């Protein structure tokens, strides 16, 4: 940032932290305003205040009386005059010369040449007709010159994430202010929402029959709308609902929608059991670049590549067995853009639209657990198998997603099938009717899912390691081809029937054990050591 003598240096921003007088100043401001302020407004006000203090401090220290004038295009200036430009980061300079301006469609004006503090000569319009001047300069026209505010805005624009994070962290520690959906207000000044009102809210949500209600709707239903400033009432009710376990905010980003926790489908909790998984941490470091790429092509929601991908169209998901059983879809970097998200709510209500029949099904986005629940009925209806291709497109608005199962006429095919006998699992090729499109490498069917579930629990209880599961699965799969080669995706898909695990730990086992020989592409072979 270009500095000048009229504005304080911004080096202090690095070590910026809120002092007690800052809190008092902010609380007074909010008291006067009477309504909650957004984080940006709060940060701007505090920045403005800090800058003023810094400026006063600097003025006392430097005793510098030679202050330059703030540039305004409607004013006139003389050669030799010092001037600074609030809208150019407070850049300062000295007027070198003045000439007549030349343009065809405007009244007369002049152009001053300024030697700026960065040693560049720039030209600026002066003596302009006020009607030709942009709103940017309006503060000058109104005699409301506040270049410091402009400077604060510029600082915030350039340091926004750093400053907002610092100030928010300080404010949250202070505890005199509460934050809700990015808005702040002193906790002592919130409107009183007593237990009676909360019971009325519960009744209103109960009567809504599973439809989430906005805070505004709730205010009207419980009959306190109009008793005080609406923005403050909404903020206060949101705060009261947030700290009450009976209620859950299920709205997507930008919308607060309340729902009764007791009305959440029980199956979501059951789904979590199938999908529980530890995220991969730094395992990728022990993998070669090629193997890392191989793991990333599987797009597992618990893989290391969790940064959101910038995408805006439909996405294809290759279903894994845990998601098939749980009736869910993965919420990964690859799929995140087709589902609603929220900054605060752990669960967001969504609607699945069946691309084939048009039927609408309720769904829930579990942000922390990284899945989207509600696909069970469709999996059952279309007889979906693990390895099936599912296409998801964004819906008409934030709250819905269109899912399309790649359906085809049923054909009897020989497919990999996992079965349980005598407390052990085996993989065989068995004939089965398949009526959905699938990815050959990822396809795996299960003969008896309840006995698989029992075996998984038993293996987990007995402390059977991933290495053992990978070895047994690999040896079972290698029997199915004449060469004995196993594709990494097939192994991932089959291991996930027994234990929910992202691809990286499986690939670490393959790369770290000399029994597994990489035979090119994505294939490995098992060669037991003598």
């Amino acid at each position, binding site marked *: 940032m270009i500095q000048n003598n009229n504005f304080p240096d911004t080096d202090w921003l690095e070590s910026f932290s809120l002092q007690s007088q800052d809190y008092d100043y902010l609380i007074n401001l909010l008291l006067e305003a009477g309504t909650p302020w957004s984080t940006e407004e709060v940060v701007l006000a505090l920045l403005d205040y800090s800058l003023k203090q810094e400026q006063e401090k600097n003025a006392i220290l430097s005793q510098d009386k030679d202050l330059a004038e703030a540039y*305004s295009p409607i004013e006139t200036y003389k050669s030799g005059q010092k001037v600074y430009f609030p809208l150019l980061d407070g850049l300062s300079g000295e007027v070198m010369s003045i000439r007549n301006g030349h*343009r*065809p469609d405007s009244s007369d*004006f002049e152009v001053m040449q300024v030697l700026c503090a960065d040693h560049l000569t720039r*030209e600026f*319009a002066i003596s302009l007709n006020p009607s030709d001047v942009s709103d*940017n300069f309006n503060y000058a026209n109104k005699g409301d010159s506040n270049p410091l505010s402009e400077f604060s805005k510029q600082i915030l624009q350039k340091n926004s994430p750093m400053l907002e994070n610092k100030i928010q962290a300080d404010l949250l520690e202070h505890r005199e202010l509460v934050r809700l959906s990015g808005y702040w207000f002193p906790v002592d000044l919130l409107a009183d929402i007593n237990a009676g009102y909360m019971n009325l809210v519960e009744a209103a949500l109960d009567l809504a029959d599973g439809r989430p209600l906005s805070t505004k709707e709730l205010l009207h239903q419980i009959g306190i709308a109009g008793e005080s400033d609406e923005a403050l009432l909404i903020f206060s009710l949101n705060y009261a609902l947030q700290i009450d376990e009976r209620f859950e905010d299920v709205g997507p980003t930008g919308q607060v929608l309340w729902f009764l926790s007791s009305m959440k489908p029980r199956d979501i909790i059951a789904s979590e059991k199938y999908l529980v998984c530890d995220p991969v941490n730094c395992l990728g470091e022990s993998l070669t670049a090629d193997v890392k790429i191989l793991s990333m092509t599987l797009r597992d929601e618990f893989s290391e590549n969790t940064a959101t991908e*910038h*995408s805006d169209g439909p996405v294809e998901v290759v279903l894994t067995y845990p998601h098939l059983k749980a009736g869910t879809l993965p919420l990964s970097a690859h799929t995140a853009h087709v589902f609603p998200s929220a900054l605060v709510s752990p669960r967001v209500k969504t609607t699945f639209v069946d691309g084939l029949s048009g039927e609408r099904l309720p769904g829930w986005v579990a942000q922390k657990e990284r899945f989207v629940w509600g696909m069970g009925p469709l999996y059952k209806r279309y007889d979906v198998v693990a390895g099936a291709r599912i296409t998801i497109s964004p819906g008409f608005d934030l709250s819905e997603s269109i899912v399309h199962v790649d359906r085809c006429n049923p054909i009897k095919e020989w497919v990999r099938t996992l079965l349980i006998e005598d407390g052990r699992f085996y993989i065989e090729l068995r004939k089965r009717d398949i009526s959905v499109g699938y990815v050959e490498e990822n396809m795996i069917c299960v003969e008896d899912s309840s006995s698989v579930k029992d075996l998984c629990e038993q293996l987990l209880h007995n402390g059977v390691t991933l290495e053992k599961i990978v070895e047994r699965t690999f040896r079972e799969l290698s029997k199915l081809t004449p060469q004995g080669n196993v594709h990494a995706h097939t192994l991932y898909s089959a291991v996930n029937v027994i234990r929910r695990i992202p691809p990286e730990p499986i690939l670490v086992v393959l790369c770290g054990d000399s029994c597994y020989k990489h035979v090119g592409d994505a294939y490995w072979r098992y060669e037991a050591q003598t």
Partner: protein
Amino acid sequence: MNQQTLFHIDFEWWAVREDEYRTYIYSLLCDKHQEEFGYIDDREHKLFDWVNPQTGEVFLIDSIEYTVRSHCSSQEGYITEDTAMVDSVFRALLANGNQPLTIKQLASCIGRVGQESTILRMLGGRKVYKGLRSL
């Protein structure tokens, strides 16, 4: 490069393509001014002071570019649904006095909200289109 990156028209990129630039800018004139300026090579190149409405800074620019910025850019049909994305971005920045804009702002200016990632891919790639570059 991300959604916060600012993009602008790099006129140095155009400096080595001066003839191409003149032809391109001429194509941005409205019908009335295309007639007024006549055939592109026949006219005299006048320079005018263009005042950046955001900062008051003055730049000397060619009369055709001045006309596009001050008149044609505010006419109906300057940016339409049929305008190619890269042309729309160029037109929006030119009309805005080449004030750097984020992808989100650009998408809004050219009426393509929701296509931010496509615009980012186009402007963030290795090939520079119409001098559109990040700051």
